[in-house]
């Protein structure tokens, strides 16, 4: 046994009490702060559920065709979504999709400016790097604990945990993309007397866009990966079905819902990746970065 050198109980009690104090005094503030997220998530879910199922399939297949210019992916999408519907997983799939889309959008709102700021300030990069490293190595479960403490179980905390989990790769790749803009192009822009704003929006962001899109792709995938875990605190959707399947030892329920998650992952992964590739071809960087 490891000898008890000091009594750590007061320390632990302090952490617990502190968090409890925060919840008691600031809980309303947190709730209010999270209100926009609740609205975003609910309206996305409502909107998608109100759309006729065939329109959603058509929209996704159409986007896939626009992104890839081939019929393979749209065909896969139609078949697999029809399969999901037949397995009575349609509503769960939509709920999961809504959570993923809301999480990705919110992540973008936070991560893009952070990534840009990081690319421009060496100090900020030095500060943020270890934080991002930590965020990416922490097991995703760990995010759930404080979030649930503050908000209690439900969809919004699930969304918040998902956002925190999905943000690091997007921040990193935005930073990387901007710093990878060829120095000779930057220099030429400089020689024409660009303002910092003209440089950012006219040169850096357009040239970093393929890399940023790769970050969006990663954020989407991580959000989806978080869905199963988030279902434990009330996110619902396909993840909840998987969880129930495990809980009740109903292999079929878990398996089909799991396949549903795979289907969504494939759809969104392929679509965002193809858009990135087309963008890269357009600016002639194909092959240079992959």
């Amino acid at each position, binding site marked *: 046994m490891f000898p008890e050198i000091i009594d750590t109980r007061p320390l632990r009690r302090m952490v617990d009490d502190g968090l409890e104090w925060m919840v008691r005094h600031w809980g309303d503030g947190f709730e209010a702060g999270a209100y926009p997220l609740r609205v975003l998530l609910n309206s996305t879910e409502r909107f998608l559920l109100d759309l006729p199922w065939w329109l959603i399939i058509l929209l996704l297949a159409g986007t896939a065709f626009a992104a890839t210019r081939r019929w393979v992916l749209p065909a896969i999408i139609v078949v697999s979504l029809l399969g999901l519907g037949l397995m009575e997983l349609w509503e769960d799939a939509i709920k999961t999709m809504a959570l993923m889309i809301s999480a990705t959008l919110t992540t973008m709102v936070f991560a893009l400016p952070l990534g840009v700021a990081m690319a421009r300030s060496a100090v900020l990069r030095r500060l943020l790097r270890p934080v991002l490293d930590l965020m990416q190595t922490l097991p995703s479960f760990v995010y759930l604990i404080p979030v649930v403490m503050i908000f209690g179980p439900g969809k919004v905390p699930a969304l918040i945990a998902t956002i925190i989990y999905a943000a690091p790769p997007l921040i990193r790749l935005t930073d990387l993309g901007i710093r990878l803009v060829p120095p000779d*192009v930057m*220099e*030429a*822009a400089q*020689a*024409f*007397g660009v303002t910092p704003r003209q440089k950012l929006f006219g040169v850096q962001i357009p040239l970093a866009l393929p890399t940023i899109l790769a970050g969006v792709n990663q954020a989407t995938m991580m959000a989806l990966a978080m869905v199963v875990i988030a279902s434990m605190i009330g996110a619902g959707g396909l993840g909840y079905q998987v969880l129930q399947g495990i809980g009740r030892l109903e292999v079929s329920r878990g398996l089909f819902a799991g396949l549903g998650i795979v289907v969504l992952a494939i759809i969104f992964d392929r679509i965002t990746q193809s858009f990135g590739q087309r963008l890269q071809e357009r*600016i*002639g*960087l194909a092959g240079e970065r992959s």
Partner: protein
Amino acid sequence: MDLRRVTKIFGDRSDMALAMLNSGASKMEVQQKTGQVVGLNDVSLSVERGEIFVVMGLSGSGKSTLIRHVNRLIDPTSGEVLVNGHDVLKMSLDELRAYRRSEVAMVFQNFGLLPHRTVIDNVAYGLEVRGAEKGERLETAARWIETVGLGGYEKSRPHELSGGQQQRVGLARALAMDTGILLMDEAFSALDPLIRSGMQEQLLDLQNKLHKTIFFITHDFNEAIKIGDRIAVLNDGELVQTGTPEDIIFNPADSYVSDFVRDVNRARVIRVGAIMDRNQLAPCQAEVQENSSCEDVLPLFARHDWIGVVNDKGKRVGSVSAKQVIGALGAHHKLLD
């Protein structure tokens, strides 16, 4: 445009290296002792308004480093840069932007095109940055694209063009700015000989009309003497000679310069005005302009012993003989004898 005692040392301990240079250490010593790279060492030159000033030197001699000082893409370690009466190094950020937008345009050795924009949007870029209205800038851009011979490529993207075509996009982009000063860093180096020679003539034509101040960089001596009013030769970060093309051909300052001069087709470069006998004004059957090259007059010696030389107003100013021409063509530099 004046560059005064410009020294540029690359590296993070440049002040120490500068102190060593100032106390008389040679460039090699400084580089070996401090690990800093001396890009330019005490370069002074002045470019007159309206002239084409060519800087020539081998690869790595510091030409690109030098030209970047004019629009302050590089800050010198020490020295002054004066352009149109203002001190470029003392400008605030706003002043510097205004200066870059309206007074200097640059053609880059490695083009520096914006890969996500079409050719016409690239050419219009400087005007856009300056805040020109859309119709106007596209019209100007289209005109310059036509001038550099890229009509029909307006909607292409840079990566769809050959190196030479990309270089001409860079050229059109700088010319579209219509600034008083034009900085051209090996602006013709990626062109094939025919187009290159065409662009050189076009530049001279343009210069006759617009009288810009052109700072031109090349490693090709033939190009330098063709377009340069004056030429400066840069060797390893130091200026070794400045002068007119004839100065340099007839009196190369050292063996580095005479190595350049040796490859020159002297018959094409030396103008009869520079070697004629000004006292021989007896009537001649054949006459040539004083800025004709030796190559032009050589065939005439098949029939005549003396050929009259006239200036651009048609006034007789001297004569040349076959002997003088052959003497000038064969003249070896004193260092080589």
